[in-house]
């Protein structure tokens, strides 16, 4: 903005002015057009997301190998997760992706109130997701399913200790050291859902910033790249959960 106004106002320097076409204030000078600027930023965001794919990919690979080795432990471990909260949380996160997509649409079509509304809704859903995750983690602490800190194999050596789960799945006791391997399942569970939740916390932080800026009228004057790229991040975190949900909660629910 400062560059273009300086040239337009004072400078009589024709040489500097030459080739300086009209452009929106948010277009940086090293880009030929707004479209090019948008593409470059979008491309960079995708490169970042691909590094995130590799980051989570390491944990998914570890999951795959350990699941192949200790399948019975993984089945019984997953029986002790709450299918109700897991499914609810999936719905909450998918809905938050939808509301954020609507926010992007509001930014594109210059609806300031709509943008603030949908960003706030996304914020509330994000907080709700973390609260539900907190309820589940608390339950796992109570049940001695937190590896390294508060863990006991008792539920897997003697499944009848937890009548609610036993009555539904009639799990047999894990023998030959397999019960100890449930700790590895819960280790992966906490590592993966914990890393995912950390991404949610970061996302919610950025979202708060976006909400304040949107209330000041940013993003609805044609320059919505930040909202779009934040949307990419948020949807990416949603995709990670889309895979975590069946891998952690739905390993084998039939009896």
């Amino acid at each position, binding site marked *: 903005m400062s560059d273009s106004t300086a040239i337009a106002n004072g400078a009589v320097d024709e040489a500097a002015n030459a080739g300086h076409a009209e452009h929106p204030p948010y277009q940086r000078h090293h880009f*030929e*057009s707004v*479209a*090019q600027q*948008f*593409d470059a930023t*979008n*491309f960079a965001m*995708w*490169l970042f997301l*691909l590094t995130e*794919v*590799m980051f989570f*990919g390491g944990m*998914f*690979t570890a999951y*795959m*190998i350990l699941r192949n080795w200790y399948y019975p432990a993984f089945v019984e471990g997953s029986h002790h997760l709450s*299918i109700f909260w897991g*499914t609810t949380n*999936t*719905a909450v996160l*998918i*809905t938050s*992706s*939808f509301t*954020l*997509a*609507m926010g992007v*649409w509001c930014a*594109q*079509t210059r609806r300031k109130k709509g943008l603030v509304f949908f960003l706030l809704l996304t914020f509330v859903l994000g907080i709700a997701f973390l609260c539900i995750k907190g309820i589940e983690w608390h339950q796992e602490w109570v049940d001695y399913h937190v590896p390294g800190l508060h863990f006991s194999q008792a539920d897997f050596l003697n499944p009848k200790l937890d009548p609610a789960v036993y009555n539904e799945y009639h799990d047999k006791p894990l023998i030959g050291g397999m019960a100890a391997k449930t700790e590895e399942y819960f280790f992966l569970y906490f590592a993966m859902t914990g890393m995912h939740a950390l991404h949610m916390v970061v996302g919610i932080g950025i979202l708060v910033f976006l909400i304040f800026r949107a209330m000041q009228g940013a993003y609805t004057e044609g320059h919505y790249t930040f909202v*779009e790229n934040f*949307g*990419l991040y948020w*949807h*990416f975190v*949603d*995709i990670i959960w*889309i*895979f975590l*949900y*069946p*891998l952690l909660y*739905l*390993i*084998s*629910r*039939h009896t």
Partner: protein
Amino acid sequence: MSEQTEEHTAQHIVGPKVYAAVGLALLVLTASTCAISYVELGVFNAVVALTIAVIKASLVVLFFMHVKYSNKLTKLTIGSGLFIFLGLITMTMADYISRAWGRW
């Protein structure tokens, strides 16, 4: 140079109807993957669960993340990134499988 035909994202605007349809499809798929996990399908339980997850992720990528409407550079970048990711997983698994050969 400037005469080259450049392909830029025309910043295609996806509307609320598409978003609502995709959001609804995602919720339906979530419910169905949950329901199917209660049916005994042997090894296919994992196959079905992952297939549904891949469909859901594709819907999110294509519509919520606008990749369906993005330029070829973005599509190619994502494609090659996922290809490398799958390649790394395949090589890791090949190593693990062949080391414990016969001891599965």
